[in-house]
């Protein structure tokens, strides 16, 4: 990075944060602080929903997914449009009608205090843990490749987002997310265009022949991580939980000028999300093709990790692996060229032979990459052996012109700040509304004190996220780590809301203990998966199982308790 890159990076990031802070510095109304301006339109809501979901990991890890495993990951989002339709038709109108600040306030009105607290606690627990991951994930990658100090990178991202989120609350979050999404869109399109100019004419066919463009898999094989069915059903439950019951999303759309604006904002996302993820994954698949034709494609993309171990006592082993990879890479280039020459005669014996030879050379290269990872692991059991998260950032730093590098690093920061702001805003709001105001009902009438406390809680969660990111070690595959944590808690939380909306005879005590039982079941499934092979299925199914278990347990408990049992009353719905 040169001076121009630094000017672009700091100019956009600090500029947007400063603008958001300055424009919303006088926010002292609780409604505006927690829900944003009343005049907020559908486009701002839609962009805010998208920006909260699209973290920096989206733009670092997902191209890596496309590079490593192809574009099949797009199926994970198949349930999302259907979930958003349900949120629009059922959840949003009720939230707006009741005038709640948080989704868990609704649980208090529908059931009782303890169920409201359980919902808020599940949210605070999983989102609080995730807030550390979402700040750590981009920081570890950026600090590794750019040679920055990890702790200072975490603190810079954390402090910047805390300043404007605490100052202006939801109003600042909405305002800054619009500009941050503009930076993200400009950066990603620029990177894509530059990549296209560097690719051969047959790039898509090469990617397809090497198995990178298998978008949809209709098989029912449970061993396959991403299929149409797991994406549709698991993704539906995950998205319904996330958009319908996670305060970081609910907060983005319950404000706004009217019900119409919230609905259109969500429908905007229902249309946008799959094409956007497809675009990012295709970028990764095309990066794979690009690196097939580069003479110095590394055997392992996290060069810092590689060089840390390749200069010690195992230097000769690592050098031999590099040489072996370079030789096989050269062979693969020749095989790809041979297949491209035969491609026009698809199905002919020569084309079939050329394709088989190309795939064989691909397998040989993959085997050396695996050997390299095994060597790293043998040299240091704690070595970070997953390098796909480093593919896109390597391309950015080595292939893009100065200025554009700064813009792409700004994309990562913008995404980190946008999603982080939404999270902190929601954590601060839930802590204020569902905990502090709940336990201090008299103080709740003092509006200025409410705003002051919301600011304090937001700052505290920001400090917690920074501390967690500084001191915790995280799973290597960061986007999966986030989705796994979410899936463990989301299904049960969704189950509570499904009972609230659709199973009207079930009351507070039954749903509370039903949810506890379902959560214990999910914990058991997660911890037993390594010892009982049949339980080792895709984590997306935790969303389905958690939700269904919560509903079934609640209904059964209500039958046992009976309509005249303890706590048979429901609090008044607003």
């Amino acid at each position, binding site marked *: 990075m040169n001076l121009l890159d630094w000017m672009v990076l700091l100019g956009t990031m600090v500029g947007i944060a400063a603008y958001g802070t300055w424009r919303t510095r006088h926010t002292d109304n609780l409604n505006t602080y927690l829900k944003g301006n009343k005049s907020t339109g559908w486009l701002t809501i839609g962009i805010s929903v998208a920006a909260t979901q699209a973290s920096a990991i989206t733009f670092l890890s997902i191209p890596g997914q496309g590079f490593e495993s192809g574009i099949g990951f797009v199926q994970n989002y198949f349930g999302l449009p259907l979930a*958003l339709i349900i949120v629009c038709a059922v959840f949003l109108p009720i939230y707006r009608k009741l005038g709640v600040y948080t989704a868990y306030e609704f649980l208090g009105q529908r059931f009782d205090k303890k169920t409201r607290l359980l919902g808020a606690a599940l949210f605070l627990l999983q989102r609080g843990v995730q807030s550390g991951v979402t700040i750590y994930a981009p920081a570890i990658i950026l600090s590794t490749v750019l040679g920055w100090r990890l702790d200072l990178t975490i603190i810079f991202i954390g402090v910047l987002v805390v300043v404007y989120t605490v100052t202006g609350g939801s109003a600042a979050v909405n305002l800054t997310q619009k500009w941050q999404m503009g930076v993200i869109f400009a950066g990603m399109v620029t990177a894509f265009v530059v990549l296209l100019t560097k690719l051969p004419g047959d790039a898509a066919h090469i990617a397809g022949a090497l198995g990178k*463009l298998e978008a949809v898999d209709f098989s029912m094989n449970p061993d396959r991580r991403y299929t149409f069915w797991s994406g549709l059903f698991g993704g539906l439950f995950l998205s319904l939980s996330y958009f319908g019951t996670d305060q970081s999303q609910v907060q983005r759309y319950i404000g706004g000028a009217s019900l119409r604006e919230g*609905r259109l904002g969500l429908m905007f996302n229902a*249309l946008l999300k799959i094409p956007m993820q497809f675009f990012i994954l295709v970028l990764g698949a095309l990066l794979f093709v690009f690196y097939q034709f580069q003479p110095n494609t590394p055997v392992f993309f996290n060069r810092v990790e590689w060089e840390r171990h390749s200069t010690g006592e195992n230097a000769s082993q690592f050098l031999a692996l590099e040489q072996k990879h370079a030789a096989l890479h050269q062979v693969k280039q020749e095989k790809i060229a041979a297949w491209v020459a035969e491609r026009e005669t698809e199905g002919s014996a020569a084309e079939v032979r050329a394709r088989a030879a190309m795939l064989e050379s691909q397998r040989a290269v993959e085997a050396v990459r695996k050997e390299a990872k095994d060597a790293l692991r043998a040299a240091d059991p704690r070595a970070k052996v997953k390098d796909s998260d480093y593919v896109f950032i390597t391309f950015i730093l080595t292939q893009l012109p100065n200025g554009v590098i700064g813009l792409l690093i700004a994309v990562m920061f913008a995404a980190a700040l946008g999603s982080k702001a939404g999270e902190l805003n929601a954590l601060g709001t839930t802590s204020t509304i569902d905990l502090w105001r709940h336990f201090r009902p008299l103080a709740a009438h003092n509006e200025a004190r409410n705003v002051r406390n919301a600011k304090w809680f937001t700052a505290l969660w920001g400090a917690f996220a920074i501390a967690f990111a500084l001191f915790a070690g995280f799973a290597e595959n960061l986007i999966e780590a986030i989705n796994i944590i979410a899936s463990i808690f989301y299904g049960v939380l969704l189950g509570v809301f499904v009972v609230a909306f659709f199973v009207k005879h079930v009351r507070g005590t039954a749903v509370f203990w039903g949810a506890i039982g379902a959560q214990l079941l999910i914990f058991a499934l997660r911890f037993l998966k390594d010892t009982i092979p049949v339980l080792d299925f895709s984590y997306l199914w935790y969303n389905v199982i958690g939700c269904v278990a919560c509903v079934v347990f609640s209904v059964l408990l209500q039958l046992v308790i009976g309509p005249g049992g303890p706590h048979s009353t429901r609090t*008044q*719905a607003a």
Partner: protein
Amino acid sequence: MPISPTPVAKPPSDNEPPGVPGFRTWKGVYAFVFGAFILMVIFLAIITRVYA
């Protein structure tokens, strides 16, 4: 004295028009979004097939 359960609040009616050209009801908007999703899946299935 037993306290009768209070009915859960029902969502407001969908009478408020979406205000989107070509759509008079929200059901129409939802159908359009669902249709777009189906088309996207078909598009992805075609890509899978063409580039396999």
